[in-house]
C-alpha cells in the first residue's frame, strides 16, 4: 500500500513539474510551425496550382503538374530514370556504409573508453569541415587519379557519398551495441554458443534497431543529395536531388519542383514508418 501511494505522489509531482517546464517548448513549436508546417502547405499549394511567384499570376487549380511528372516524355526519359538512378546509388551507398560501418561500430563498442573517444574524433573530425569543401576536394582527388570521365561518374558519386554519410551509419549502430548488456552475450556463451554463433543469434538481432536507423540516416540523405553529383560528375549524372535543385534554382519551375519534393517527402515518411516499426521506443534515432 505504502509503496503504491508513494509512486502516485511521485507521479503527481512529476506531472506538476512537467506543467511548469512545458512553456520552454513553445519557441521550438513556433519555429516548427513557421519553418516546417507553413512551407509544407506552400508546397502542396504550388503542386496543385499554376501560381507563379515571379509573375504573381492568377491562381488556378490544376492537376497538370502531376500529369507532367507521371505522364509525359520528360517523365519517361528524365524524371523516372533519375528516380531509379537515385535509388540505385543510395542503395549501393547504404550497403557499403553498412558493410564498412558495422564492424567499426562493433570494434568501438569493445574498445576501452579512451580508444573509443579517439575513433569518435576520427569520425566527427570531417564533419567540422564544410561539406561543400569536402565534396570539391573529392572532385580534385578524382581528377588527380584520372577518374574524371563519364564512365567513372557513378562510381565517383558513390565513393564521395560513402565518405560523406558513413558516420551516420556508424553512430546509431554503435549507440545500440554500446548499450547492449554484456551479460546477455555471456548468457549466450553459457548456453553453448561459439563466438560466431553468439554474434549472429544474439548481437546482430539485438542491434537491428541501430542498423535500421543507420540505414535510414544514410539512405535518405543520399536519395536527396544534389551537391555530390553536381560537383563530382560536373552535373551530368542527374539524381532526384539535382532535378529538384534545378527547378527551384532557375525560374518558373516551382510548381513541378513542388511535385518532385512531395514525392520525395512520401519516400521519407515511408522510411520513418519502417524505422518506427522496428524500433518502437525510437531509442536509436539521434
Amino acid at each position, binding site marked *: 500500500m505504502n509503496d503504491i501511494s508513494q509512486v502516485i505522489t511521485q507521479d503527481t509531482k512529476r506531472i506538476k513539474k512537467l506543467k511548469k517546464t512545458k512553456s520552454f517548448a513553445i519557441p521550438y513549436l513556433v519555429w516548427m510551425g513557421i519553418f516546417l508546417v507553413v512551407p509544407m502547405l506552400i508546397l502542396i499549394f504550388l503542386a496543385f496550382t499554376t501560381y507563379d511567384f515571379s509573375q504573381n499570376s492568377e491562381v488556378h487549380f490544376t492537376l497538370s503538374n502531376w500529369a507532367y511528372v507521371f505522364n509525359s516524355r520528360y517523365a519517361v526519359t528524365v524524371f523516372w530514370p533519375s528516380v531509379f538512378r537515385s535509388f540505385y546509388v543510395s542503395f549501393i551507398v547504404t550497403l557499403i556504409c553498412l558493410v564498412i560501418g558495422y564492424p567499426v561500430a562493433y570494434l568501438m563498442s569493445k574498445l576501452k573508453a579512451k580508444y573509443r573517444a579517439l575513433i569518435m574524433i576520427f569520425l566527427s573530425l570531417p564533419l567540422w569541415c564544410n561539406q561543400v569543401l569536402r565534396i570539391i576536394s573529392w572532385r580534385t582527388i578524382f581528377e588527380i587519379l584520372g577518374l574524371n570521365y563519364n564512365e567513372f561518374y557513378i562510381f565517383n558519386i558513390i565513393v564521395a557519398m560513402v565518405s560523406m554519410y558513413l558516420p551516420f551509419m556508424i553512430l546509431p549502430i554503435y549507440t545500440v551495441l554500446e548499450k547492449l*548488456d554484456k*551479460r546477455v552475450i*555471456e548468457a549466450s*556463451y*553459457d*548456453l*553453448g554458443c561459439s563466438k560466431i554463433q553468439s554474434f549472429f*543469434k544474439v548481437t546482430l538481432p539485438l542491434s537491428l534497431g541501430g542498423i535500421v536507423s543507420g540505414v535510414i540516416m544514410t539512405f535518405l540523405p543520399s536519395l536527396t543529395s544534389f551537391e555530390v553529383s553536381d560537383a563530382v560528375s560536373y552535373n551530368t549524372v542527374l539524381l532526384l536531388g539535382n532535378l529538384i535543385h534545378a527547378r527551384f534554382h532557375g525560374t518558373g519551375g516551382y510548381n513541378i519542383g513542388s511535385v518532385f519534393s512531395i514525392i520525395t517527402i512520401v519516400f521519407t515518411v515511408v522510411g520513418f514508418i519502417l524505422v518506427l516499426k522496428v524500433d518502437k521506443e525510437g531509442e536509436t534515432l539521434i
Partner: protein
Amino acid sequence: MEKVLVDLKNICQSFGDFEVLHDFNLQIMENEFVTLLGPSGCGKTTLLRMIGGFDSPTSGEIYFDGKLINDVEPNNRPINTVFQKYALFTHLNVFENVAFGLKIKKVPKNEIEKRVMDALKQVHLEEYRDRKIDQLSGGQQQRVAMARAIVLKPKLLLLDEPLAALDRKLRQDLRYELKDMQRSLGITFIYVTHDQEEALTMSDTVVIMNEGRILQIGSPEMIYNEPETRFVANFIGESNIVDGQMIKDKVCMFEGVQFPCTYTGFSKNEEVDIVIRPEDFLIVNKNESKLTGRIDSKTFQGALHEINIIDQNGTELTVHTTKDYPLDLEVGLTVDPENITVMKKPGVNIYTGVMEEDGYVRISDDILLETDSELEEGTDVVVRILTQDVLLDDIDESDFEGTIEDIKKRDMYYDVYIKSGDKRIISSTSKVHHVGETTGIWVKKEKVVVNVEEDLSNE
C-alpha cells in the same frame, strides 16, 4: 562416498593492484547446495564467473569433475548460469529463450518442444510460452532465466544473486521453490548472495567470504550458532558481541559477571570475544541475575519485540522476546551455557615506532611501513597490525623480508612466526609455508593502525 564436483585450488585473482581473491581453496560436492555469502566486493561473484568460464584466475587451478578446466571456454563447460538481472534475450519470446541452448546443441525439434515445455512447467510458466520478455514481471523473468538454464540439464548450476531484484514476499516464495527444484533435479547449485537469510534457509553449506578469503565454512546451523570470528557473527543475523575473558575451562566472564559456558582449551584469563544472539538472552527479575540493566528502548517487530537494554556498565545489549516489557524497567539477564559463543580475538602485532615523512612509520632499521596517518614527523607511536593483515609474498613485491621461524596450525589457517632483523611478526595465512624459508612481507597501508603513545594509557 560423496564425489567432489568442483575443486578450487589456490585461486588468486587481482585486477591491477587490487587483490580480489587471495589464495582461495574450496571443494564442492555433487548435489550440494553451496552458498557463497559475503558483502559486496568480497570476491564471490568473481569466483562464480571463474567457474562459469567468464573470468580466468591470475593463478590457481579449477577442477570440474576431476578435469582441469582453466582453459575451457564457457560454451564447452557443462555448467549453466542464472545471471544477475537474468540477461534474457529480449528479441526472443519465452519459449525461444528457453529453447535457445537446445537449438545450439542441435537437439531434434520434437524433443526441444517437449523439454522446453517440461522446463516451463517446472517454473509454472507453461501458459506464458508465447509472451515477449518485456511483457513479464520481474518474478516471471527470473523463472524464465531458471528454465533456460535447467532445460540443458547441467551438472552444475551457478546462480548470481538471482533474487536480488525482486520484492520481499516474492523472494521468500522463490527461495523454497529454488530449494525444491535443486532437490528434485539433483543438480549441484552454487549460489551467490549477500542476503544472509537466503543463505541460511536454502543451503546445505554456507561459505562466508570477506576481502577475497574464506572466513568460515559450515552448515547454516553451525555458522549461525558457532561463528568463528567477529565478522561472521555480525554478518549472520544480529548479535551482541562483547569483550570478555575465559576465567578457566567452561567459565567465562563478561560485563563483570561470570557465566558457565561450554568452551575449553583457552589459556587462563585469555581475552576473548563473547557472542550472544538477541533471542538467547532471557529476561528475569532484577534480583535473579548479577547481570542487570534498564530497558532503554523497544520496537515491535510483529512476531517479537526487540528490546535494547543498557546494563550496569553502560553497554547496550539487544534482546528479542515474545513478551512485552515496559520502558525503564530494571531487569536481570541470563543466558544458557550452550548459547554463549566464545571467539578467539584476532592476533595482533604491536610495535613502538617513530613517524617519518609522508605518513611512513619506522619500526626498526629494516622495517618502514606506509600508513594513512597524518601524524607529524618524529612523533613516537604505537603500531598495531592484525596478524591476518600481514601478507606473505615474493620478496620484490614486498615492504620488507624475514625468515620463517615457526608455524602453528590453527582451525582454518596457519600462524606463521617470522623474524625480520630484531623484530618478530606473526602472519595468519591459509597458504602453506615452510620453516627456514625467506619470505617477503607486506601490509596494506590502511591496515597499519598508528596511535600516539599517550593514547594507549587511555584505552
